[in-house]
């Protein structure tokens, strides 16, 4: 079963994603980091297959963490989660920095799982 690390400063979004992941049957939740710096640490300790990460977080934001993660760990697949997914420039910037896809908010479980299963 693939392990997914959830990275979001919002407790409610983390809860939504953890629920979708744990009820999917083919993914398991590797934990919850509250910012980019925690994500980098937990990527090392928990070794997830996929990271679902918010773009806007206090402290180290998602795009800054993404830059480091793709250098530090060539195997990990990062999907950004953001309400700004529909802003073309933001979506493109995330892909250019190495994100595999972007999940727009509001999301539904089918879309999240479809994107995770494509990886």
């Amino acid at each position: 079963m693939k392990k997914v690390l959830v990275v979001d400063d919002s407790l409610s979004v983390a809860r939504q994603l953890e629920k979708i992941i744990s009820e999917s049957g083919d993914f398991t939740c590797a934990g919850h980091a509250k910012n980019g710096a925690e994500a980098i640490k937990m990527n090392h300790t928990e070794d997830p297959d996929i990271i679902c990460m918010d773009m806007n977080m206090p402290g180290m934001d998602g795009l800054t963490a993404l830059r480091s993660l793709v250098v530090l760990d060539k195997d990990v697949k990062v999907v950004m989660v953001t309400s700004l997914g529909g802003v073309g420039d933001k979506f493109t910037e995330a892909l250019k920095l190495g994100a595999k896809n972007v999940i727009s908010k509001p999301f539904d479980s089918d879309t999240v799982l479809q994107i995770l299963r494509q990886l």
Partner: protein
Amino acid sequence: MAVKFFGQYLVENNLVSRDALLQAIELQDQKNLKLGEMALSLGYLSQADIERAHNAQMSKDMKLGDLLVEMGIMTSEQLNDVITHQKNTHLYIGEALVQVGALTPDQLQQHLAAFKLDQALYVTDKIELPAAIANSTIWEMTADLTYKMITRVLDLQFRPGKCELISAPRTAFMMAAMDFSGDVEARYVISVSENLQKQVAKAILREETVDNEPVEVLEDTVMEFVNVVCGNVAAKASQMGKAMEINPPLTIKQSDPGLAVPPGYTGLLFPIHIDDGDTMELKLFIKN
């Protein structure tokens, strides 16, 4: 389920690969000339003129085209000509995907039709603002998208009230806010009653009951709703040619200065009458 741009819709639905989209965007970057580059190619100015205007732009909050006219480098007619050329030669993402071989012209038409259908839910209805307000179409769209998200995300039935000007907003059980910056500046505020906060939390957490949830989780769900609406507003605004940045959401307490409409701002109130008799409020503090 959100406001999207076409490239995102295609990648999300696995209709083109991420790498093909990046290739098409690279092609767009090569082919779509910026205003200065187009003016240069039409012989209206020199590279030195562009650099002079860019330097002047550091101390002036003006678009390059307007500045070039103000500095006497180009005439208004030449500026209009440059903009027309940019529009006429613009390579759209769908065409770029055809050119890099990721889509056939037939597939492009088929996917465009499906995309338009998907996004039709977010087409803005006309909302009347009470006064002459700068960028009024952006704020009408903001109110309209808020209504649409209340239906789609919170699953609440409601009737929008008449928009009015306010100077001192009423207090509420809880208020969550987000600041917009960029081409337009404003504070977006949603206020809810205790009962509505629980309804928002149930919808966001997808739980039957939230009676045992801690206060910070309940507040976080209202902030998340604000975040979702404002991100989609920024996406829609970018399609309308306005760049809007969003800042992290925050809660406003009764004693906070953030409660009042700041000097130099116009306050708008949009009452939202929920079917069970409760009222949610959307407030916009717009920089004049």
